[in-house]
């Protein structure tokens, strides 16, 4: 007996929600988007090809739902949690560390398509080919969106200046482990 992919939906909820939150930048909207995605996936489960990547299929439904809602709204939704554009830290700390909050704020200012590309290939570990498939565009398009997003992030966070050179593996580890572990 083959397993029912419907029973596996629950396993993908955490990553689906993480994707939605980063895409929407608003948790209430993200949860509605996840809810819509679950219902669509459930009712269209026969369209899922068993043996293929269920997570990729779900992410595709989620992003398509997100973009149709955005098109209906007629403009990019400006209702973003917190104030992302203002008060960006302009430089890493003097010791070259990069606060996660600043990173998140900078990330939230990127256009949807760049955030999406970075979320798929940078954060969730999909290949460029899978991401291109999910976004229904060319591999080169995903690569260019991701690279423009990375370039913008490094610019916003001044990582391409002297600060970047101080970012040794050790300071990277420090960023990874705890942002509040600032030495004096």
């Amino acid at each position, binding site marked *: 007996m083959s397993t029912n992919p*419907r029973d596996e*939906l*629950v396993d993908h*909820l*955490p*990553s689906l*929600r*993480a994707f939605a*939150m*980063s895409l929407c930048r608003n948790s209430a909207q993200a*949860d509605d988007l*996840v*809810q819509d995605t*679950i*219902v669509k996936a*459930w009712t269209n489960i026969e369209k899922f090809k068993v043996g293929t990547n269920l997570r990729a299929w779900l992410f595709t439904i989620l992003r398509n739902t997100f973009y149709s809602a955005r098109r209906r709204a007629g403009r990019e939704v400006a209702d973003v949690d917190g104030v992302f554009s203002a008060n960006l830290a302009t430089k890493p700390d003097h010791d070259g560390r*990069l606060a*996660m909050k600043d*990173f*998140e704020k900078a*990330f939230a200012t990127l256009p949807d398509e760049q955030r999406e590309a*970075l*979320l798929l290939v*940078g*954060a*969730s*570990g999909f290949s460029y080919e899978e991401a291109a498939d999910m976004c229904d565009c060319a591999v080169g398009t995903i690569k260019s969106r991701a690279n423009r997003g*990375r370039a913008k*992030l*490094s610019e916003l966070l001044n*990582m*391409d200046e002297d600060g*970047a*050179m101080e*970012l040794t593996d050790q300071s*990277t580890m420090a*960023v*990874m482990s705890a942002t509040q572990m600032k030495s004096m």
Partner: protein
Amino acid sequence: MAHDSENEHVLRQIDENLKRVYQQKVEEDLPDRFKMLLAQLKEQGEGETHQ
């Protein structure tokens, strides 16, 4: 070439940060509404198959 490796270092760091921010969100507690929704969908489906 020095510039390239510097650049690669920055890019790697960006991806590490991306993964970390994303992972934090993955580890957040899920609202109950999603499990309730799945249970509800399952119930409805069972109703249909008995028709």
